């Protein structure tokens, strides 16, 4: 893959209302078993207002952060996981031996071993959709319009530049950015 970064996904917690459409869109797009997806929506509660919720209840879609320094990649003994030049962490099912080290190592519960194939699966930012000019399935279908692509106008930015830009949005550990008022 090239070294031009794909746009990171920006999650607007003010708009996510926890409907889990993204999960269904992801499951269908990646032809996963109906109960599986690479994105999972978590619910959080506090007794006072929290980001995303004036009433103390927020919804947080959790998916692969495409970490700057990914734990899963380091943990994989067979080199089946790689961080590519476009910023995306990819799984290569051919090389995967199904040991599950990556699943254990990912701090965010983002990577799953797919029961059917026994190989690692994770959010690929719908790269095949993006290269054909379409939006990732979750981004396109999110009814709350809580998901968007950052700075999609700038096709030429490098991975480094995109990382710079994401600082403006909110909070991130890798290439997925969360924001709220």
């Amino acid at each position: 893959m090239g070294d031009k970064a794909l746009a990171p996904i920006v999650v607007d917690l003010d708009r996510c209302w926890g409907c889990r459409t993204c999960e269904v869109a992801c499951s269908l797009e990646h032809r996963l078993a109906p109960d599986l997806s690479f994105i999972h929506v978590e619910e959080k509660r506090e007794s006072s207002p929290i980001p995303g919720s004036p009433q103390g209840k927020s919804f947080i879609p959790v998916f692969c952060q495409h970490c700057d320094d990914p734990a899963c990649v380091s943990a994989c003994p067979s080199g089946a996981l790689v961080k590519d030049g476009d910023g995306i962490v990819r799984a290569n099912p051919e090389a995967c031996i199904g040991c599950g080290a990556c699943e254990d190592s990912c701090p965010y519960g983002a990577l799953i071993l797919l029961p059917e194939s026994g190989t690692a699966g994770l959010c690929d930012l719908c790269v095949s959709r993006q290269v054909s000019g379409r939006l990732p399935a979750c981004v396109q279908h999110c009814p709350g319009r809580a998901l968007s692509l950052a700075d999609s106008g700038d096709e030429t930015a490098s991975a480094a530049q995109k990382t710079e830009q994401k600082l403006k949005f909110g909070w991130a550990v890798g290439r997925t950015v969360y924001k709220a008022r």
Partner: protein
Amino acid sequence: MDAGKEKRAAFAALVIRGLAARGAAGGRAKGPGAIGAELPASSPPGLAPSAAGNEEPDKAEVRRSAPRPDGQALLAAARAWAGSEGMEIIPSCCFSCNTACELLVFRRKSDGRVMKIEGDPSSPVTKGVLCPKGLAAVDLLYNPERLKKPLRRIGPKDRNSMEPVQWEEVSWNDALDEVADKILGFREREGARSVAFLEGTRRGWSRVYSRLANAFGTPNHGAAGWAQCLWPRLVDCKVTFGAQYSEACDFPNTRCVLVWGSNPASTWPILGADIMDAVERGSKLIVVDPRLSETAAKADLWLRLRPGTDTDLALGMLNVILKGNLYDRDFVSNWTSGFDALAEDISWRSPEVTQRLTGVPAGLVLAAARLFASTSPACISRCVSVDQTADSIQTCRALSILAAVTGNIDVPGGNVAVSLRGERSQNTHEFILADQIGPESLKDRAGYHTYPLLCGALSPVPSDHMPGFWEQLASGQPYRIKAALIFGSNAAVSYTNSRRVRDGIGQLEFLVVCDQFMTETARMADIVLPASSWLERDNVVSSFQTANEYTVFQQPCASIGESRSDVAIIGDLAERLGLGKLFWKNPRDLYDYLLSPTGLSFGQALEKRRLYAPLVFGTSRKTGFKTPSGKVELYSSLLEAEGVDPIPRGTAKEEAMGRASGDGEVARVVGGPSFEPYPFVFSTGARSIFFRHTENRRNPWLIAREPRPLVYINDETAAGLGISEGEPVEVFTSTGSALMYAKLEPEVAPDFVQAVPGWEGRGNINYALGWENFAEGIGTVPMRGLRCGIRKVSDGR
């Protein structure tokens, strides 16, 4: 919880804390250390909050990040990709709910198989989003349980028998001949009233079916919704504003949204997104809901009312507005009638009294009323909840009055009448041939004398009061109903008091059910007709509800077995009943007819994709309102003429004051004052985005995310009863019970439980809903503010 789930939950907490820390620092990011310290131990170096730069986030820039790529470009990209994969795209619109989202059906060219469904990014309404029901709708076509051929029952004879039912396949000709022969025979021997026509939720063919019922000549026609869904709002619009549907919200121009008894985030996502847009623009959001719903979670003010006390809350807010002179004086004096009578009648409703009646703190009542009245323009987004109280029409009226006295009717940003797009409406008495039922025959309609707003001329579809109808079916009094046709309705599940409904169905001599699946109701039939899904048929979706400015179209993308569209089935049946000239042989003929005033054929309209007409404001201020007084009738002369209270009153003053002693909590509770053994207030108002009414429970993608019937319970209440998250719970009333699964939420009031309706089997909450306290004038079966008990169900029970 599995390890992955635990880690995701921890990460979610981290995100919230990370963002909160930014906020706490006055919009400035904290250094990585502050939050980094809380990262999971296994986190690789470098995984730090990226807000390390300490710079002020540029709000404008943040907002600019969101615009989507151009919809036409996205559509073109989808087409190009589909082409490269050997697929073609057929544009249509979803009808897994009334939102009617435009979508793209991807069909394989080689064999015509539908491969996937996506939102249509070029849609001006949806901008490409689609909810789970739409996304997963391919399963509607290929689910192995789809009915593919007409079936005739062989046995057992008892419709309520638990034995497996034996069927034989029959041809369409034989099936329809038999149906026609049988019902013509009943009509000849016992009169048209011995045959009933029942239907489900609106589908585009519903009024064609009403037309058939009326043309056949029977007064017995009805649905599980109607008096419990939409009709109270429509009757309210008619008597209050003189308009068919005048409650659409102009979200793009509003500055305050009051969402009442509705959770659009789950049930009407496109409206939900419009509301989020409004909030993002700075509009205020007030949500009235007994549960901290997905929509309420985003609210500036959340009013947790005790279910069923909507009228009291609305009138309490109204009184704050009138007393505080916060209403629109010009509009009230020029364009309303009955203001003084209303003001006088509600003057005792202080915020404190309102608190005692509704459970909403007085300060919040005050704040919400003031915010709504002083933010202009504002709109009220209401939905089915307001139709399901024990005084449904009055609940609706109280809200319409709230919108009217604050000057929010027919103005940009307020509540508006939807635009007409030129096509012919099916929602008229003329279209459904209502005048075919003469005055003598009308008297045979269940509830005719008691519920004029449902059974008579003011009703959107004059029809039976269904509890009375089912009782009549079960008892044979005052006359016997022998046969029923049930189209698009899982009646054994979707009506309240399911036991009694089943008793009634059990008494039928002949039952025809038209559906896509072998539902609990279809199981009881003599003849089952296989209906096609919305992916297999034409349709003009022009409802006043669907979108404010657009009419959209469906077209067939596949055909499954011998299933057919209801319009085609109705047309064929009508032919056999000698009514052919009143119907359409081919569904396209119907749609050509409906579209003819626009000068377009259905085919041309499909090419165009949608009909558009912008919202028009201020018409009623020029022409007057089409009520008897020409004004917005706060005091309704039309209701008075029907013997229905012309003013919404809510709980009577004496009752409210009398019971307001002690700890001062007065619930407007159906089922009387005895609290044991039913100490909980309950409603069946919870909805899930994965289902619609009784539908979608066979779809693997949807069922995976909500596999069981849920009942929301306060977490501490549950703990006291020994109930943990996900455990089976029996919800019981004096009528019956249902087996549901606990969903614990701390924000639910300790004495409140809320069930998700629509499940077959033991999880059907309608077994627990009885028939009492029908709403005046329209006969609504109340589904809010009922009394129940709950108990933990141990294993093996």
